[in-house]
């Protein structure tokens, strides 16, 4: 068995060409491969980080943004602990598609999933088409954590994943706490815990 305290699945989604693969490569390998080709299907990377002395294994799924891979990528939403919804700050279109992505999340992801909105490519500041304020307002309305990054300059990339890992840890802690309280002693008491702890919707 591998040695880690937590294992989280993070899935990156967003339009084609917004820099999902570059964000993942930057974080997991410290690389910025220029001329990165379009991702085929899904890609899979692992990075183990240490947060407050605890080993956190992050399983990062990098998905293809192109429409024809949608049915493949959708199948990964449900098991994801977190989704990183990425757009390109120099591409208005990639921002305008966000509501559509949110609909997909609504439809396929677990209701406990944490969603982070990421505006990538801030190194191309002079070509910016989506203002920080607009994105901040949008993320606030959707109750999402929001961050701007540059995979090329390595701005905020580390922060994005580490902050997310921190939030996932605290979320996981809360869940185990809730579960411990609600689980009854075996063989005792009338309450049947599977009536309370399962919620499908």
């Amino acid at each position, binding site marked *: 068995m591998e040695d880690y305290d937590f294992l989280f699945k993070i899935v990156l989604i967003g339009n084609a060409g917004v820099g999902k693969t570059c964000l993942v490569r930057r974080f997991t390998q410290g690389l910025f491969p220029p001329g990165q080709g379009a991702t085929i299907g899904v*890609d899979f990377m692992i990075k183990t980080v240490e947060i407050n002395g605890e080993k956190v294994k992050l399983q990062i799924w990098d998905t293809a943004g192109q429409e024809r891979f949608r049915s493949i990528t959708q*199948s990964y939403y*449900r098991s994801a602990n977190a989704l990183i919804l990425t757009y390109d700050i120099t591409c208005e279109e990639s921002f305008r598609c966000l509501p559509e992505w949110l609909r997909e999340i609504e439809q396929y992801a677990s209701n406990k999933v944490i969603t982070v909105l990421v505006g990538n490519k801030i190194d191309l500041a002079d070509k910016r088409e989506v203002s920080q304020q607009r994105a901040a307002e949008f993320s606030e309305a959707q109750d999402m954590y929001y961050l701007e990054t540059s995979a090329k300059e390595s701005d905020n990339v580390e922060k994005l994943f580490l902050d997310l890992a921190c939030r996932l840890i605290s979320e996981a802690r809360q869940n185990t706490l809730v579960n411990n309280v609600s689980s009854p002693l075996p063989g005792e008491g009338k309450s049947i815990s599977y009536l309370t702890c399962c919620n499908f919707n």
Partner: protein
Amino acid sequence: MAAATAPGPRASGGEGGVCPTSALSMERIQSFTDLADLEAAYSRLCEEEKVVQEELDALLEQQSTIENKMVALHRMGPNLQLIEGDAQQLAGMITFTCNLAENVSSKVRQLDLAKNRLYQAIQRADDILDLKFCMDGVQTALRNEDYEQAAAHIHRYLSLDKSVIELSRQGKEGGIIDANLKLLQEAEQRLKAIVTEKFDTAMKQGDLPQVERFFKIFPLLGLHEEGLSKFSEYLCKQVANKAEENLQLVMGTDMSDRRAAVIFADTLTLLFEGIARIVETHQPIVETYYGPGRLYTLIKHLQVECDRQVEKVVDKFIKERDYHRQFQQVQNSMMRSSSAEKIEPRELDPILTEVTLMNARSELYLRFIKRRIIADFEVGDSMASEEVKQEHQKYLDKLLNNCLLSRTMQELIGYYITMEEYFMRETVNKAVAMDSYEKGQLTSSMVDDVFYIVKKCIGRALSSSSIDCLCAMINHSTTELESDFREVLYNKLKQGFPATTFQDFQRGVTSAVNIMHSSLQQGKFDTKGIESTDEAKQSFLVTLNNVEVCSENIMTLKKTLESDCSKLLSQGFGGEQAQAKIDSCLSDMAAVSNKFRDLLQEGLNELNSTAIKPQVKPWINLFLSVSHNIEEEEFSDYEANDPWVQQFIVNLEQQMTEFKAGLSPVIYDTLTGLMTSLIAIELEKVLLKSTFSRLGGLQFDKELRSLIAYLTTVTTWTIRDKFARLSQMATILNLERVTEILDYWGPNSGPLTWRLTPAEVRQVLALRIDFRSEDIKRLRL
């Protein structure tokens, strides 16, 4: 003070500088007035004088040695003059030799240069001769239509050093050579034109030997790219013709044909096989005449034609099979749950199979060309730099990923996954709706059916050879099992296990009242109530079995898929991350197995608390009505007519028979485990409410032994542990005297581990009416 020390060096200087300066200066001595001081100074001066004397002696001793050395030195004087003369002579010789050597080597260098120039001159002469020879040769060869020979001459000309040609033109015969060169260049152009023309004619006529003949000439004329592109054009035409024919055949295929359902996959297969055969056949020529590393160019051209033909076939497929409309319908059905326009999943079956087959063929073909190109690049790049190799790898990836074939197949598979997911979900729903249970079976039909469907769908995805497609279907199956199907079972368990006997009595009254009510209202009597209780019971037990089998089936499915996938991967399908992706998706699936286990545990707890506990508890409470404060007479009476335990065992036996028949052995075992724990806990409660005489204690010990003996026969678990506390209580109740406990307690306990606290021991001792409480209190435990 400064003045006092100053004369020191001067004085010592006067004394020959042999000894250290005297510690006493003259002034100092003169200043002495005291006799003692003078004496002291005198003695010190005497000592100093002695030391000086000794040193002088030592120096004088050395005099002779020094003189000897001086004599020797004087003798060496003339020799040294000789040596100096010799050395000068030697230096002169060396300088001379050096000059000589430099002279010689410069001559050698000049010679070398001359030799090189000579060689160059010879080379040039050769080249010029060659040039002439080529020129003459080309003319002759062209006249004789010996194009190979002509091309060889041109090749020779092209491989000549251009500067040589330039130099030749500047020579004396420049005019002639110029003219010749012009002729040669004209010949080159003419040959190029002829070869191209002849090639085109051969191509039009489909004359393969001629095509190959001229194909071999192109590289000699430095027209590698053109040659490959022309040759590819020819090959593409052949591919296109064959594909056209095949497509015509498809349109004429009878729907009753054995392969009709997969006719488009078959057509693609023919196309791919055709191209693969072409590559196989012509790779040696390309390699021999064009050198390694050129196969990529050929295949790149062929791929364009392949894409064109694939597009035609897939377009026909989409049209004939109504692929897009079916997908639309599936999507609509998924959006709206209204069953009115729902597409029948069974109708999708053949098309889903065909699509996966099409993709499998494409993957096979792409893997073939990938391997061929890699092998060809490897030969060509064996000496190349890392950058060139990466560049080539990039070309290859681009070709494979961006070709229309790949994109088209990705699109088809994208639709396929959605449709397969729909197929799976709808068929599972059907299996659930048609669930039936046969007497004597432990599980109902839906479990087998559901796993058959899931296996079929994942298996079909696997047969597409696309790892992403497979993973997506594994994910969808995990979702289907974890939420949809688990919810079905969970809802069934939620209805609970109907209570019986004593509770039945209560419920019987209320339901009888209800039945009366309803029958009064409807004017008829309904016996459904009683029947449905039995049904509900059975349904609950069957569901428990179902849950357990699900949990096991998931693990089996995971194992099967693991071995199937490793087979696929060992054939070289999938990227570098394929194994990791599959492992991750499968481990998610395995996690669902645990969720079913949890559900089983919950169900069992429910069964234990609603069905077993309400019955077992009253049976155990009967113990209270049997006095254990007994004398000899009652004890023997109990022996003859057992007051409690035998009936209890019979009751248990009766109750468990129902479960033993209805539950799988594993679940039954867990249930009896739960029941035994319950009995132990409840019996302890009633025990602590009873009182015992000495014989009463013996009676209880007998009863407990019978009970344990019985329970041991019905469970595979070891139950001694669960009854450890009760057995120890029985031991205490059997003591002769209060103090006898000390024979078993503390240091005397031996192998026995007490499960009772000292307070509990006292509590049990107090149950014996014949033990005095003072004695118990006085015990030191």
